[in-house]
């Protein structure tokens, strides 16, 4: 087990192992997302209160899940990099940040689109929307900080520290925003306050969530691999790999 983890920490090994893992996650992601969205968009019954507009939840909820999970994964990768100096962890953290920011933006945008028929407005200072917006700013901060350093090592360590500080603060921000919202506004209609979803509605949602996670893993593996090639381009094994390829 430990030997496997140690091997995974070496860019060369990670490159080889991920080459075998990657196709499986792509297949899983494509299969789950296609099935989930066909099922969710075409076959699941319409909501008795919201009609067909509830179907945006099949994109909104998985994106929101990922937005939060990616930040936590990024902070864990940062911790691994800071403690054990495993370079692959930092490469993964570096490629995760833009994807996480994109997912946060998708969940905000789909929430706004959902808000038009439901709330009658594009934006409301709802507790979830507000904490998602703050999460987007946290992502942008990590990306901007990484880009601001000229030395790659400093950039990696600074981004790791900021991701860890952010992840400690996310629950505090989330709970204080929830508290702030309940103080200022009476609880309005939210997704979770409805009675439990019937099976034919949440099953496609589950598929979509799993599909989004597979997509995240597949894309992270792929982008980490290209990051490995970029950063290790002066190493012999990369040169040999390129020569073999040609």
């Amino acid at each position, binding site marked *: 087990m430990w030997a496997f983890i140690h091997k995974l920490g070496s860019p060369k090994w990670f490159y080889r192992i991920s080459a075998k893992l990657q196709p499986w996650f792509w297949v899983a992601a494509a299969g789950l997302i296609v099935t989930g969205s066909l099922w969710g968009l075409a076959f699941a019954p319409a909501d008795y209160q919201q009609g067909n507009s509830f179907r945006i939840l099949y994109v909104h909820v998985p994106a929101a899940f990922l937005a939060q999970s990616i930040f936590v994964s990024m902070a864990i990768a940062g911790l691994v990099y*800071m403690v054990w100096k495993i370079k692959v962890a930092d490469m993964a953290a570096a490629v995760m940040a833009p994807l996480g920011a994109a997912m946060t933006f998708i969940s905000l945008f789909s929430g706004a689109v959902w808000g038009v028929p439901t709330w009658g407005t594009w934006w409301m200072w709802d507790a979830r929307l507000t904490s998602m917006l*703050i999460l987007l700013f946290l992502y942008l901060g990590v990306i901007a900080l990484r880009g601001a*350093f000229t030395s790659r090592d400093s950039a990696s*360590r600074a981004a790791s520290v900021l991701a860890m*500080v952010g992840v400690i603060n996310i629950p*505090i921000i989330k709970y204080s925003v929830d508290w702030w919202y309940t103080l200022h506004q009476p609880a309005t209609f939210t997704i979770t306050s409805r009675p439990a979803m019937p099976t034919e509605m949440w099953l496609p949602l589950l598929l979509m969530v799993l599909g989004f996670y597979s997509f995240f893993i597949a894309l992270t593996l792929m982008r980490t691999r290209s990051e490995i090639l970029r950063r290790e381009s002066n190493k012999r094994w990369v040169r040999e790999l390129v020569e073999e390829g040609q």
Partner: protein
Amino acid sequence: MQVSDTAPVASAGVALGEPGGNLMVAITATLKRDLTLMLRRRGEMLNPLVFFALVITLFPIGISPDPELLALIAPGLLWVAALLAALLSLDSLFRSDYDDGSLEQLMLAPQPLAALSLAKVAVHWLLTGLPLALMAPVLGIMLALPAGSYLILALSLALGTASLSLIGAIGAALTVGLAKGGVLLSLLVLPLYIPVLIFGTGAVQAAVFGDGVTAHLAILGALLAGALIFAPWAIAASLRISING
């Protein structure tokens, strides 16, 4: 890699004398040095206060001079303006020490960097956060803030700005090595300020409406306690990154 750099110095420090006694001496010396430095640059010290007063002046001009409307939004305005004023002063927290190399000396000291940077942050709060808190009631009068909430305003700001200084120092330490760190600093730090802002304005609003304020002040205190525990380590780690980079 940092460990190997400081290890000989640290062992020398242990060999020189009792580490516990050394630590208190070092902290007092850092406090004294920073206070002296800041008190010799009084103009710079006044800038956040003037900024605070100026921003507060802008709101009645931009919104409305109607006292009833102003009283309604005064808690939030005062808190946001004080928060921005505190943010403005953060960039200079480590800047001059970084430029003249005394930050490296702090790092070479046998005492833990976290404790020494905590002393620096304490001075920052004493000379920025505390004056802002003391000045806020005067600006509150100008915004027609209802009587009876002035003490809570000052108290919540005094407690809150201490957390702001601690959290902000992490951002300042991360960006001190960058040539144009100022805007980046606000991008990094402002999202982390939101809980403090929520409970700070919450305390003042509760005082205005005559509700209990102890809960809000207790949470502000809890946030400060949390920041006191975690922030010094993050500040020290960030300073090490900035110096090495």
